[in-house]
């Protein structure tokens, strides 16, 4: 039975996969699905006192502080959040893993230089760095994603580095070098597979933090430009209505949590199924 098949046998993993697929489809086909344009301010979108309208027949999830349809904004926001979450987090994991694993395995001077650079990056306040970078490059979706990646890869590199050191001292690595394996082979065939659980945890957990960091950047005006919706900036825009119109904060919040949870559960399943000693135990 293939790994994919075994993963799909787990209920939690299957549900997660379905949820992620639904969100992805919604993001791709947003113009077809969304009931309204995400940026249109409706005349009847606010009460006479100027407060958002609570969920009703016309506006299924209610309206936001500017009288825009929340459901449409959520559907379009999925685009931003997914792109940022996947690109930013993907680049961060890739970069962090590469730097961590090579400096951990090579040690020596190259390893030290790489790790000192990582320490340097770590010493910068992450938000300040992100704001600076975002200010230098004019903010587009891709730039925001890359800025977030630049901030996030550092911790991953640190953790991977320490693990790579301990794995590279294990006897099967010495045995493989004794057989004449090249560094490249040892790294890819013996060290990387053992780092997979950690990498997967970062790849899945990181999605949530990335989405939130994007929201923070948007809030500070260096992220996604309004009126383009993202789940994060929907929360921030509407936070003043937290008491009177809680759905404005809870629905995007729930979307972020569910997406993060789905990636997490899927990551867990993948980790267990890829480890032959754990396979089929849980």
């Amino acid at each position: 039975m293939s790994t994919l098949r075994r993963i799909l046998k787990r209920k939690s993993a299957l549900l997660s996969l379905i949820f992620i697929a639904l969100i992805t489809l919604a993001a791709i086909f947003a113009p077809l699905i969304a009931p309204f344009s995400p940026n249109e301010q409706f005349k009847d979108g606010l009460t006479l006192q100027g407060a958002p309208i609570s969920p009703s027949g016309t506006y299924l999830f209610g309206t936001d502080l500017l009288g825009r349809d929340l459901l449409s904004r959520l559907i379009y926001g999925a685009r931003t959040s997914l792109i940022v979450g996947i690109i930013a987090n993907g680049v961060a994991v890739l970069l962090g893993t590469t730097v961590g694993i090579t400096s951990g395995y090579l040690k020596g001077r190259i390893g030290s230089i790489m790790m000192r650079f990582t320490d340097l990056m770590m010493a910068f306040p992450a938000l300040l760095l992100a704001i600076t970078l975002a200010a230098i490059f004019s903010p587009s979706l891709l730039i925001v994603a890359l800025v977030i990646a630049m901030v996030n890869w550092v911790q991953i590199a640190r953790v991977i580095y320490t693990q790579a050191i301990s794995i590279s001292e294990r006897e099967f690595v010495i045995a493989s070098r004794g057989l004449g394996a090249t560094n490249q082979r040892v790294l890819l065939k013996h060290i990387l597979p053992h780092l997979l659980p950690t990498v997967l945890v970062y790849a899945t957990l990181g999605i949530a933090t990335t989405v939130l960091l994007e929201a923070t950047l948007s809030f500070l005006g260096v992220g996604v430009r309004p009126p383009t919706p993202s789940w994060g900036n929907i929360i921030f825009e509407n936070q003043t209505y937290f008491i009177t119109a809680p759905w404005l904060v809870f629905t995007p919040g729930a979307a972020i949590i569910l997406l993060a949870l789905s990636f997490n559960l899927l990551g867990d399943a993948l980790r267990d199924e890829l480890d032959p000693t754990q396979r089929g135990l849980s």
Partner: protein
Amino acid sequence: MNILEIENLRKEFTNKTTKKPIVAVDNISLSLERGKTLGIVGESGSGKSTLGRIMLRLVEPTSGKIIFNGTNITNEKPAELRKLRSKMQMIFQDPMVSLDPRMSVRELIQEPLDIHNLGTKAERTKAVEEISEKVGIAKSALEKFPHEFSGGQRQRISIARAVINKPDLIIADEPVSALDVSIQAQILNLLKELRREMNLSFIFISHDLSVVNYFCDEVAVMYLGNIVEYAPTSELFTSPMHPYTQALISAIPEIEIETKSKRIILTGDVPNPADAPSGCHFHPRCPIAIASCARQTPLLKNYGSNHQVSCNLVGVNA
């Protein structure tokens, strides 16, 4: 021609906090004839495993020479060394940690062929199946993973990995020490069979004298990084000359009570190599030591045919 010669090998480790050197292997010279087996025995901490790893340059020596098959490999560049590695293999003590737990048995046994890029895909598959049959791993078990096997079976996997490239030299570091006694015999017999069929030369590192007696042609006894006695197996076991060897041999359990000679009991433990005793390293525990042993460092000298001993008192008393 000798398959392996080492000359004046020395390895120092430096204690990172005290900056004091620790001599793990002290000026050791040995040679191994093709097709023969040399046993290296000693207590834990005597430097025997380090010596074995230096021979393959898995640990770099501080000084000395390693000559493998006529080539001086002491300063060989990594790329050249990698090619030579297919001809010298290592079997580790504990296959649970020396076999990558994430690889299937087939991948593990095939790894040496993959690394050295030998043969086509079909030839590799065939070679893996042949060798696993020879070492006693069923073809149906090849897709399993190391943790699904017993200790003895796992060691068979290590052995298959070591011999699939048809090497000249195998360094076996305590290959049976982690196994039950009944399994030990099976594994030793398998190694003997392979040695005969493939004309393998062995460096056999062990702390178990009866195993060494069964398997080796020559034996070197190590104590704190030095060789104290080096002789053909039969001679070493019938007439050991160094007091340390005598004590070790007297400690082998025997079945016939009447023939049992008096056991020589050594007091104390192996000293800390960072703070090795002066003169003869063995003198604080030696039953026959005299005052001058604390000052005078003994040299390895020849007594009779190929029987070398490093003791100040041998030859003086006799």
